[in-house]
Structure formats: C-alpha cells, structure tokens
C-alpha cells in the first residue's frame, strides 16, 4: 500500500513549509517514525518522521521548495515493508500525552463515520506526532503537489467551529471552498485563502535556495571529537605536535571540562599569591587519639581533623573579613556568613560542597555537616544549592600524603586554605629539639584585595587557634 507523505502543519498560524533536506533518497528503505525529511518555517528547523515503513518511492517536492501544509511531498511504498519492524512507536505512544489532541479535538465536530475514530486518530497522531491533528496518515485521495485535492463528494462540509464561524462572519459558502484537510475537511487555512480571494493550495515559487556547503572545520589531522578547541582550554603547542607514537584519545567528561574551565578562569581572574605557614598540632593529635572512640560512640560520627581547621579558619575570617569576601568589579562584597567550601576528591573529579554558616555551628555540628556532605558528594546526591554560596574554601592535599599544596582559588572566593599532611617532625622548642606533630598550612589568595600582611596575620590567627585549642569537642 502506498502512503502519501504530507507537509505537516507545525502551528496554528503556519500554512506552509520549506523542505530543507530529504534524509532519504528515492528507492531507500525507511522505517516508520524514522526521520524522513527536514523542513523549516521561520526560525525553526524540524525533522519529520516517516508516516509508514517501506521504500521512499517518490519525492514530489524537492529541497528548497516551499509548499502549503497538507501538500503531498512524497510517496512511500509499503509493499516491501512487511518485514519492517517498528520498535520505536510503543515508547512514543507512551510519552506523547493525549491531552493536547483531546483539547484540540474538543473544538471539532464528532468524527464522521468514514473518518478514523477518536481512538484511532489519537493513535495515528501518536505514530506521526509531527503532523497536525487533522492530518490523517492515510490520505483519502491521491493528490499532486501542485493542485489542491478535490473534496470527495460528501454531502456535508467538514470543518471546525472556528472555520464555520469565520465563514459565517465573512459570508462565505463553505460548500464552495475547496477543502485541503483530511477527508476534504475545510481547514482554517482554506477559509483564510478563500477570504483573501486566493486559491487554496497555491504553489509557492521555489525559493532560490542554495544548499549551504558543508564547510569542513579547519582541523588538524586527528578528529577533535571531545578535545574540541576551546577558548579556555587552549593548547600550548600546535595540536599536531601532541599526537605522536602510541596514544589514545578520550573526551573529557563534562565535569572535567567544568573543572578545567573553572581553574583557567580563576587563574585568569585572580592574581594568585601564596603564603606558607606551619602549625604545631601535637595537642590536637593527642586530643583526637584520646577522644576518637568516645566521640564515635556517643555521636555516631567519625572524628576527623577537618572540624578543627574549620573552627580555626572561622576565627581567622572573623578577624580578617577581607579574606571572606568576593570581588565584584571595583566593589568588595564582604560576606557576613562563613560558608566554608570543602574540596572533596571523587573518583571522577572534584566537587566543593559548602558547610553553610560554619560560624554558628559547634564542633559536632561541623563534623556532622562535613561527613554528610562528603558522603553525599561521593554518592552523587548533593543538591545544587549545597555547592553554591561558599565564602572561603579549604582543601586537604595532605590526605593523599602531600607535604603541602598550593591550590587554585575557588571562585568567587578570594582565598583558599590548603592543609598538608600531619606528620611528626623534629622541631626546636625552647632551644631543644623535640618531636612534634606538624602541619603545613598554605593560603592562596587574590592579591586584588588581600595583601600579604593580611594573609600572614590571618594565617597567624589560625596557627594560634590550632596550637592553643581550648574548646571542648563533645
């Protein structure tokens, strides 16, 4: 059985469409719902799925031509299509909600006996979702592209209430209007054409359209599928010089690209300066060793060093608010809250969840917040707002054994504290060499607003707070 392919109506006020591209050639097999051709109207480009499975027998409207809706643009011969399996429609039907059709149909007269039943029509629509509701997939008359189809000799004129109203208001005899809709239905477009005195289904002149040449991207030999040239991810050497010997190429994940973008942006926006200090945390190590089991037993949370550092950082931020700020052009935004971002390493990247209002939390509250955020970061259950609105950040390269690290500022912060590994070192105490638990503290800060004097005083405050810890942790 041959099936006509029609130009669908893509909107109420759209009465014609331009075929921009046939995705199949005559003689080629096509599955039902497989994209068959592309049309464009105004600023919209749409792929139109095939109404049936079979072989594209004929293209009646070539690329670049503009024709009225409902025009037959091609014919599919379904003869050899018995084998064609159509796995897609089942899913399609499910997700195409019927309520739109229902609403549109409510305006229309009950379907005449010869027309598909409502259920069939809904199904047909689902199978051919891109066509207008009136466009039944089974045309009743073979029609040419250049001539509007003649209405079969029906007694009553099929039309919608809107069309009848328009006809009445404009004194138009509907029986005299050639209907181009399904089953000879007089569509809104027909009545509008009649009102203009023009013949429905006029053939629009073929646009002087030249298919745009597919310009090859100016690319060096290896295809840059994932590693697409990127303004920020610029390459330091010509790309040709990266591909040599044995190699494999993998596209960056989006998260990786985001991290890369953020780092490049941060380094570009903020002139980074680094200060390094060290703190004697022998007492904290002792305290933690003493209280570890009790803490875990009574609170159910593991006791880590991070809350000590957050507490110390909050003290520092309160004393030096500039470190807890953001830069907006020539303004400095001083944040009243201390929202501390904690860098969490993931197998697939890095994320910085934020402990909000750290200044209001006690030690246990901080420990719980950190554990919760880190756990959910690793199980991908963070909410967007939980990685936003940080005012300062802490990263802990020491956890991987790093003596110290010089981190990149997480924007829009102006500073980030890096924690080295805590290890026993010989240090001079009261002119004697002692074995103490030491940690390197590094601060990367934005020199636009934070000067070395402030940075070192800030670090001094943290150091002092850590070395003279007095707060109870339970």
């Amino acid at each position, binding site marked *: 059985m041959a099936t006509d392919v029609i130009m669908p109506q*893509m*909107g*109420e*006020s*759209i009465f014609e469409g331009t075929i*921009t*591209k046939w995705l199949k050639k005559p003689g080629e097999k096509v599955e039902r719902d497989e994209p068959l051709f592309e049309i*464009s*109207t*105004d*600023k*919209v*480009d*749409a*792929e139109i*799925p095939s109404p049936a499975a079979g072989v594209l027998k004929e293209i009646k409207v070539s690329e670049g031509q503009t024709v009225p809706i409902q025009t037959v643009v091609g014919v599919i011969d379904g003869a050899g299509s018995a084998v064609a399996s159509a796995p897609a429609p089942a899913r*399609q039907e499910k*997700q*195409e*909600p019927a*309520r*739109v059709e229902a609403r*549109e149909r409510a305006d229309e007269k009950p379907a005449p006996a010869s027309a598909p039943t409502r259920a069939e029509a809904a199904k047909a629509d689902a199978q051919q*979702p*891109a066509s*207008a*509701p009136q466009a039944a997939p089974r045309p009743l008359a073979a029609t040419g592209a250049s001539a509007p189809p003649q209405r079969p000799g029906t007694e009553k004129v099929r039309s919608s209430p809107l069309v009848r109203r328009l006809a009445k208001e404009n004194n138009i005899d509907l029986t005299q209007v050639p209907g181009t809709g399904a089953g000879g239905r007089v569509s809104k477009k027909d009545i509008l054409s009649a009102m203009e005195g023009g013949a429905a289904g006029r053939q629009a002149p073929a646009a002087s359209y*030249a298919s*745009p*040449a*597919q*310009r090859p*991207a*100016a690319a060096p030999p290896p295809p840059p599928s*994932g590693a*697409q*040239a*990127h*303004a*920020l*991810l*610029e390459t330091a050497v010509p790309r040709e010089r990266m591909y040599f010997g044995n190699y494999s190429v993998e596209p960056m*994940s*989006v*998260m990786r*690209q*985001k991290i890369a*973008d*953020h780092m490049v*942006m941060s380094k570009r926006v903020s002139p980074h300066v680094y200060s390094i200090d060290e703190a004697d945390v022998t007492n904290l190590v002792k305290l933690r060793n003493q209280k570890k089991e009790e803490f875990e037993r009574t609170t159910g949370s593991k006791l880590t060093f991070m809350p000590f550092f957050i507490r110390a950082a909050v003290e520092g931020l309160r004393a030096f608010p500039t470190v807890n700020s953001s830069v*907006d*052009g020539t303004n400095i935004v001083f944040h009243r809250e201390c929202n501390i971002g904690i860098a969490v390493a993931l197998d697939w*990247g890095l*994320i910085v969840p934020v402990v909000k209002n750290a200044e209001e939390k006690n030690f246990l509250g901080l420990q719980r917040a950190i554990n919760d955020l880190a756990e959910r970061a690793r199980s*991908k*259950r*963070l909410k*967007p*707002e939980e*990685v936003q609105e940080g005012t300062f950040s802490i990263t802990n390269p020491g956890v991987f054994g790093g003596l110290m690290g010089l981190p990149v500022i997480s924007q829009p912060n102006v500073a980030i504290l890096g924690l080295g590994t805590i290890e026993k070192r010989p240090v001079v105490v009261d002119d004697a060499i002692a074995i103490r638990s030491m940690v390197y503290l590094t601060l990367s800060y934005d020199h636009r607003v934070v000067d070395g004097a402030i940075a070192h005083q800030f670090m001094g405050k943290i150091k002092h707070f850590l070395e003279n810890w007095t707060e109870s942790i339970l």
Partner: protein
Amino acid sequence: MESLPITDNTCWVVDAGFMAYRPAFELQRRLVAARKAGTVPDVLLLCEHPHVITLGRNGRLEHLLASEHLLRQMNVEFHSTDRGGDITYHGPGQIVGYPILNLAAIRRDVAWYVRQLEQVMIRATAEFGIEAGRKAGMTGVWIEASADGDQPATVEKLAAIGVHLSRWVTSHGFAYNVSTDLRYFDLIVPCGIQGKRATSLEALLGRAVHREEVVPRLLRHFAAVLGREMRPVLLGWLEETLHEHEQAREVPVHAAP
C-alpha cells in the same frame, strides 16, 4: 535529588557556565534523546560559549564575512548546525539558552513557541527599563532607537533565536547579548539580515552588566511565559542521570551523529 518531585511542568535548569559549542551541542543531542524517551522532564540548559560562529540549516555561507584564516587568528570556531535561522555569533558575555521542551505536552505550535521565547526576553529586558520588541518577519528581540538629531532611527538586535524540532522536542534556542563584544558581529551578517546591527544590554544601559543579574530574570519569565516550574540541577548530576539512562538503554553514548 531523587526526592525532587517531577510534575508535568517541571523544567530542570542547568547553568553550565562556560561551555564550548561542540560539547553543548552533544549534551543537547543527549537531552533530546532522553526527553523523547521520557527519562528526563523538560530541561533549560544555559551556557556561555567561547567565540563561535554557527550557520543554520537555511543559512548562507556568504553571510560569513571573515575568512577562515581570520577566524582562526581571532580564535573563533565555526560550525554548521541543524537549527533554524541563518548565521549567528556566540561568545563571552552572551547568555545562550537551550530549552529542551516537549512541545507536544505544551502546545504543538512552533510559531507560538518562538513568540514565547521572544516574550521571555522582552519581559526580562523590561526589568532593566528597556523597551524591546518584535519586528514582523524578523524573529528575535529588537531595540528601536528613535531618530535623534542627525542620527536616523535604527533597529538593533538584542537577542537571536534559532530552534530545531524533532518529534515536537525542541533544541537550540536563544542567545541574549548581555555584555557581548559587539565587534565580533562584524564578522557576519547577523541572521542574514543586511544592515541591521547587534546590540547588548551593556551597550544599552551604558554600564557593566553581569550575567548573574540577567539569568534569574530570564528564568522567572521563562517559567511564567511557558508555564514551567523551574528546578535548578547540577550539570554533573544531570550528566550522571543521562549516563545511567543511556547505559540502561544500551545506546552508545558517543555515537557519531
């Protein structure tokens, strides 16, 4: 995130920030597939592209005024793409919005949809005290400057629109100039319309305007005009969600288009 309720009009909002054209295009392709399969609700993807010139399906190459050599020198990428519309430029300072909506569930009318996108941007612009409007036959958001002394009346384009539709699922979308470097538009005939210049919110207001001032306004009006309930989600999370569904469907993730 699993606890987020998804209703019929839920629209996830992902602000991807700075993202090159190709990855954004690829992400859209995956979102469209997921939207068709019903594994994600409507999604509005926001981003900002590095310098790139894109040519729509109906575009004409002669509207590209710069040579390939110059583009490379200026670090401007070039892509042919499958959206509607002619040639356009994207770059830093421009908010690019890619709504992946199932129009079948909203309204099956592409002309209506394009008008709504215009409406969203017209309303957002109005919040800055600037009256933007439409030009018949020229999709986009336009600013009319009345004749002033020797200066004749002009019409400048603030935002461009180009849409692709597949089974009523939309992709591509709009590009709104916040603080775009307008000189880059000299490389092309914007949207193929001769003699019309582009403008930006910053140029119109005569002050620095940040993307962050504009995005929430666009989102609010997008929600109101298109009847969506906006839900911000993280890009990484969206990625993982798509990935999981793609694995489940055994669809190759990086299949060539």
